[in-house]
């Protein structure tokens, strides 16, 4: 056996153990380099081949290449083994401390509870085909009262004690006491049929636990030929179901608002003490009646149509309105309306 053959045989015998002895990837690569590197043992053997006669060179070359392939395979195998070992060790290592707080670049922002309610209610009416009609918060007296059938100096305006503005050259103006001014504006500005909602801030001279001088209402109204009180009930029932869940009953009690006739107040089955069988246990929210009052409604008064240039013989319509604070107070169990405008971050963060 030639010395080259001997060297190859020695190397073949030795490299598996040498690879196996390497405990890290770096050690393995170093060992591999010692064999296959430019100055490696196999490269050295290869250089010896030059001294061989031509006829032996080819056979020996094949043997060298064969061994090289074997070494490379051994290297790859050991490399994979080391990687697997490392991964096994990682998998078996102690768990992360997941009690440490989660990391978030930004704190969470919160919508105001009134906005949450507003967006929900607006979405419900939009799905039913209503569009949003905007209007001014500082309004002409006529759009807030006369066009809605409030006679001047009528006690009905007691319900809506108004903030009047100083004269700034714009006629008699006030902070609107309800979003119903939008009814006047829509009827003056458009030809029926239409279906609008009008959400927004309104103002009354009241300030206590359940009244804020500024609060929010949402009005919905439909004007078309043949609109009936049954349609009003239909919309109310649908609204109640969509806001408070299936099987929410609606109850009407006749009441009086100057711009509707007939007019009614609307109670819905209390959503807070509803039992699985659909009955209501009675709770503090509904004062143990099973019903909570959430809005007022009625058929638009012919006087309103006349004031706004719409023929009441041709068109009828209904209107309904609710206080968003009231809906929010019920929904979130808030007992003092002033919390909504105090803006304590500890309050806002709860929504």
């Amino acid at each position, binding site marked *: 056996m030639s010395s080259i053959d001997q060297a190859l045989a020695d190397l073949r015998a030795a490299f598996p153990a040498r690879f196996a002895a390497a405990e890290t990837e770096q050690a393995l690569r170093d060992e591999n380099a010692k064999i296959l590197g430019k100055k490696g043992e196999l490269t050295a053997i290869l250089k010896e081949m030059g001294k061989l006669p031509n006829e032996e060179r080819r056979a020996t070359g094949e043997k060298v290449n064969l061994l090289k392939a074997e070494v490379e395979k051994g290297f790859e195998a050991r490399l994979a083994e080391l990687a697997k070992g490392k991964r096994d060790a990682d998998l078996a290592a102690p768990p992360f401390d997941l009690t440490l707080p989660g990391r978030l670049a930004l704190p969470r922002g919160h919508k105001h509870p009134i906005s949450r309610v507003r967006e929900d209610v607006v979405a419900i009416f939009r799905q039913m085909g209503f569009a*949003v009609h905007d209007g001014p918060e500082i309004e002409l007296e006529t759009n807030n009262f006369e066009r809605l059938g409030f006679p001047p100096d009528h006690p009905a305006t007691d319900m809506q004690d108004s*903030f009047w503005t100083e004269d*700034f050259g714009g006629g008699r103006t006030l*902070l609107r006491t309800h979003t119903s001014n939008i009814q006047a504006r829509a009827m003056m500005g458009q030809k029926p049929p239409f279906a*609008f909602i009008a959400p927004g801030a309104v103002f009354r001279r009241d300030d206590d636990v359940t009244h804020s001088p*500024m609060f929010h209402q949402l009005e919905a109204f439909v004007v078309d030929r043949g609109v*009936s*009180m049954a349609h009003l009930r239909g919309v109310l029932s649908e609204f109640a179901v969509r806001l408070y869940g299936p099987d929410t009953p609606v109850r009407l009690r006749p009441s*009086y608002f100057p711009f509707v006739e007939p007019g009614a107040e609307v109670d819905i089955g209390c959503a807070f003490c509803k039992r699985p069988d659909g009955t209501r246990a009675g709770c503090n929210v509904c004062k143990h009646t099973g019903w909570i009052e959430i809005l007022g409604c009625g058929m638009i008064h012919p006087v309103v149509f006349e004031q706004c240039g719409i023929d009441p013989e041709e068109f009828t319509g209904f209107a309904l309105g609710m206080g968003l604070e009231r809906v929010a107070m019920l929904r979130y169990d808030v007992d003092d309306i002033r919390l909504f405008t105090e803006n304590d971050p500890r309050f*806002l963060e709860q929504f």
Partner: protein
Amino acid sequence: MKASYAFIRELLPALTASPRELSDAFTFAGLEVEGLSEFGAASVECVVVAVLSKRPHPTKDKLALVTVDLGEGKTQEVVCGAPNVPEPGGLVVLAPLGAHLPAAAGGKGMTMARRDVAGVPSEGMLCSESELGLSDSGEGILVLPANLADPGTRLSDAIPSSHDHVFEINVTANRPDALGHVGLAREAAALYDLPFAMPSLAAVLAETAGAAGGVIGDVVRIQVEDAAGCPHYGAAAITGVSVHASPLNVRYRLAALGVRSISNVVDVTNLAMLGYGHPMHAFDLDRLGGMIVVRRAKAGEKLATLDGVERTLDAGDLVIADAEKPIALAGVMGGATTEVHAGTTRVLFECAYFDPRSVRRSARRHGMHTEASHRFERGVDPGDVEEVLAHALATTRALAGGKALDGMLHVRADMPRPQPIKLQRVKMDRLLGVSHDWQAALSLLERLGCTVHGTATDDEAELRPPTHRPDLLRSVDLIEEVARVRGIDSIPAELPPIRASRDVGGREELEREVREAAVSLGLSEAVTFAFLSPEDLANAKAPPAFVGLKNPLAVTQSVMRTRLLPGLLQAVGRARRHGVKDARLFTIGRTYVAPDAAARAKEPVDPAGAWPVDERTSVAAVFVGERPSWLQKPESLDVWDVKGTALELVARATRGVWTATAERLDATVEGAAHLHPRGAARLMARGRQLGTFGPLHPDVLEAFDLTAPVFVLELDLEALRAPLEAADRVVYKPIPRFPASARDVAVVVKDDVLAGAVVDEARRAAGDLGQEVALFDRFTGGSIPEGHTSLALRVVYRAAARTLTDAEVDARHTEVTQALQRAFGGQLR
């Protein structure tokens, strides 16, 4: 309005519904009963007893042992501490063992049990009016008039009005008829389909006329100078009355209804008002000087009203006057000079119909809201004047004796009679969306007092409403009557075919997008008042208010805001005082400024009238405290936090369509005075200013009592509004197909070199191959010379159509570094 169940039943004896049932029936007919309480509940259990004897308590001076006769030969001894135990024979009220006195023990209630009073057992208690819940007076025990009832009689039998059920009814402004028990009885009759008869006028008149004591026209003359203010003035007189306290039965009836008993004659007027809902007034006839004039006051005239206030009258006030001076404010309150008093013997009763608006104006002008004005404002029944006067005479004779003067005086102008209203069956059914029985509907309207005018057919009828229902003016009013009495709840529910409309104004969605964006950026939404004080605006260096309020609740809410910031700054101040140091709040709301005439000239005319002022929807945000960090010492917020939020807010609110930039702003220019001059910036997009941001000026911090730096942002949504509607869209750019190469460069520049200029220069030098230049490190101190800053940039190179070679990238990057050296004298690091 408090209403008595017993009173209603006296007027409608056929009524069998319980108080609870009647309460529900009223509520579902539109007379909302907000409360139902029992008056004098103890009267049912307590009994009238006669004092037989009394002797001193063995140990206590102030107590007595009283033996009482319980009737049927039974007697009992009770301990009593009252100073007014009557002599034997006197009638008092005993609460026997087991009786429950809800009003006793300071309103906590007590149930009578055997107890020892200072060593002497007592099985019951002699009661005071307050313990019985019949009045507030706790002065001694209740001593009943002699011969009122036999001992052993239940108090509620001896004095029927000592037990009642009281409804608290929220009577809406359209139902003045329900402000009297006659109206409520009539309503109950309609609801339960019972016959209702008014107390017979003929009977009452016969009773009074029989005892004529003269002719009224001989003692007083009535002159109405303002027939519009007083279309009907009626008067009746009675002589020889004896003014004293009313009997208990009257006093308890009044007490149940929350009315103070004054004297028998004054109580007569209150009973009439509670009965008919028609206020009246009693004058001492001898103090009138034989003359009643109904006229407008002369400006500056004085009137001392019954509440003890001297009032200066306005020329608009309608008054009742004698020959010289006002003696009553018509429909609101009587005057002191003609008041009925203990010595009064001749009384003139007034019952009138005053113009509702006139009464309302006077009442409001003088800040008075009386039982009378409340009713006149809503419109009393002009048809019951004679009846009310007759009723008053009859009641006076019963309570105070005397003889009625013959006749009544009536000065009346033509009151428009209620006009017949045409009701069509088909219209009714169409409006309600349900078919009601036509005949039943007509009969129901008749029960409510309407009379069929002419002949009703199967399809239509003409009905004349009664005078006590001024709210019935058109057919819808009659339709409502049918709906509410039949049960409005019986109307079926049916979804209408809604023809879709289009938004008008378009702020709602924009506000929603902005709200969504702000919340996604970690801000919490606040809702602030639209009004504030002029100082709040001045403190925030905001423009002065354009709109002030005439009648604010407080000066702190007296003008309409021109900026949103003050409200937020106040919220932050409150929060910090409560120990909440970190706050990131925003609010969306309107500011109220002078109309922009030029802009308005371009808008179409609004038939409902232009908006009185420009209401600009804005967003404001405040940042105070620390930036969130993870397990590290938190760092204070700075102006770059608000800059990042500002730019991103615009991007998110416009769904990435708008890219805003920030520009330094000269804080001396209008609209930026509230910002710290070092950090004042404006937010620009598409060549227009969207808003401003920066640190708050120390003056403003101080004015709002804020001790930590606050960063603010204001954004004018109106600037975002119009263009967003103009079909803006995101345009897709092809995704790069060839790889990019990144190179870093760090350059040391003088401190006054703006980072943005360095980035811009690098971008320029990178030219067509430079895809992105980003500042990734900023460093001072260490080996960096004093007055210098090291800025490290990463430049990403890429060509759209091929892979760049290292040589190409290196060459271009060398150009970039050289350019930075040239431009800023920067040393490479």
